């Protein structure tokens, strides 16, 4: 169905205008407003100890969440793709749940369990471990919303990879761990990298869930996104824009990195091909 040139051009124009008005133009304004007074805004913002603290806290939380998500993500992907156990289908469906749960609901759920009057919160507090209104709560909330990102990258690649090479390695005497390190890990390397980059972007930017569990105490549990909100509402728009610019730059850099890496890695092994999930037809097996 080749459209005539003018239909094609009209569609293209509509799409470009829509995307520019909805995303391109607004996002470019964050840079414009942040640099409205030259570098002065940034100098003032970074002289503020609360800003520095918020940035450090955000970075620390993001690093912890990336580590947790990567270990959990790789492990659960291997289990879900390669092993059979009761309740696997249910687990599969539930793993996607965090993507469509409201951040505020995530925060509320964590408060109900780990808050002072929550199911485990009282006992944990007596043991001297505070979760809600403290950094561990921020890590939990962020890990919750980031949970599916690594898994969704690895599962299609693992599924497509099959077990030929792993079985060959095992039959030649490789241990399970050797097989994983020498065969499986290199094959899923890029999927893990994408997952990590996306998790990083998401972890740096989480707002709603963190707002509920952190208590938003300036200099103690206030992350960068919470600081942006507070400063904007306190009419310190320069600081708000400076921090927002920093966050936006990192997240856009993450997206650009993934887009570029993806269009460069041309090996079909890493292609999460859609047909891989249905049974192969005989012609495909023969081919």
């Amino acid at each position: 169905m080749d459209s005539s040139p003018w239909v094609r051009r009209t569609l293209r124009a509509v799409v470009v205008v829509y995307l520019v008005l909805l995303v391109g133009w607004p996002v470019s304004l964050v840079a414009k407003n942040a640099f409205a007074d030259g570098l002065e805004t940034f100098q003032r913002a970074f002289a503020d100890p609360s800003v520095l603290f918020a940035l450090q806290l955000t970075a620390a939380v993001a690093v912890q969440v990336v580590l947790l998500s990567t270990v959990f993500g790789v492990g659960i992907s291997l289990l879900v793709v390669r092993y059979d156990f009761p309740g696997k289908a249910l687990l599969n469906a539930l793993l996607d749940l965090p993507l469509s749960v409201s951040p505020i609901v995530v925060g509320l759920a964590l408060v109900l369990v780990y808050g002072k009057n929550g199911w485990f919160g009282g006992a944990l507090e007596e043991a001297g471990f505070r979760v809600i209104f403290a950094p561990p709560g921020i890590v939990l909330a962020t890990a919750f919303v980031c949970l599916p990102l690594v898994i969704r990258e690895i599962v299609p690649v693992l599924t497509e990879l099959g077990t030929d090479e792993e079985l060959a390695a095992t039959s030649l005497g490789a241990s399970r761990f050797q097989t994983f390190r020498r065969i499986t890990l290199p094959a899923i390397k890029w999927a893990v990298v994408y997952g990590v980059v996306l998790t990083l972007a998401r972890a740096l930017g989480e707002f709603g869930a963190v707002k509920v569990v952190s208590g938003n105490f300036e200099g103690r549990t206030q992350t960068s996104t919470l600081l942006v909100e507070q400063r904007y509402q306190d009419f310190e728009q320069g600081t708000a824009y400076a921090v927002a610019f920093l966050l936006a730059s990192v997240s856009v850099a993450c997206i650009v990195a993934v887009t570029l890496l993806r269009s460069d890695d041309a090996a079909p092994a890493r292609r999460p091909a859609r047909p891989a999930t249905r049974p192969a037809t005989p012609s495909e097996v023969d081919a």
Partner: protein
Amino acid sequence: MSPTLAERPGRTARERGPAPAAPARRRRRTPNGPYRLTATSGLGLGVALLWFSALALVPLLAVLVETSAGGWPAFVAAVTQPQTAAALTLTVTQALAVTAVNVVMGTLVAWVLVRDRFPGKRLLEVLIDIPFALPTIVAGLVLLALYGPSGPLGIDVANTRAAVFLAFCFVTLPFVVRSVQPVLAELDRDVEEAAASLGATRFTTFRRVVLPALAPAITAGAALSFARAISEYGALVLLSGNLPMRTEVGSVRILSYLENGQPEQAAAVASVLLLVSLLVIATIQLLQRKVARRG
């Protein structure tokens, strides 16, 4: 977790491009496992399930338990309280409207990205993924900069219902595009050409050949858009003003209930949103099975 449908935005660029599907077939190998669980993998599964439960399952269960603690009348009272009912109605109607926009615009964007070639196309690819990665509070801030009181366009939607619509549109942009794109890229163009050679008009070909093939992907993307829209919070905080009875959405109600020390009411509203999320996931799973069977 089948990658067939309803993907997180940003499946591979190669998958999006018009590259031929043949190499993927060639690589087909032995089927995956299932291996039996060994002691080590069983332990791993145990640890993973423990972490997943502590992080997500038990807390979400706590929301439902907290809701049911007050019984059915308390739930109904919380959800039908005028301010809450207004917030939920606004959330659902705006989310439906935005989903409709996404079904049309998302399919159109996917179409242009797959079938058209022009300089700067890769830039558009990046633009589509931005809403997924940009912190939501920054999204609200930048929309306010363009469509707020001092915006260069002279359009001011701040503190109106249009602001809710705009914020939803921004955060849900990638879902339909990214779910339709790979399906469209793998669509066999021979069938379209056959239809055309048999005298079908372009519109007929689109309606009778292309659209049915895209329908499951569009539905899945629409479901994700809807789920994301009704749960949005961050992008709205600065933009909509959270005016009671006018621009307040469901998630804002949950937060204010919680801050006022009314966790039961907060949990009741949260359960409504949670139920919708579960429905969406169920819809997508059903669609995936259907597509897999047909495939």
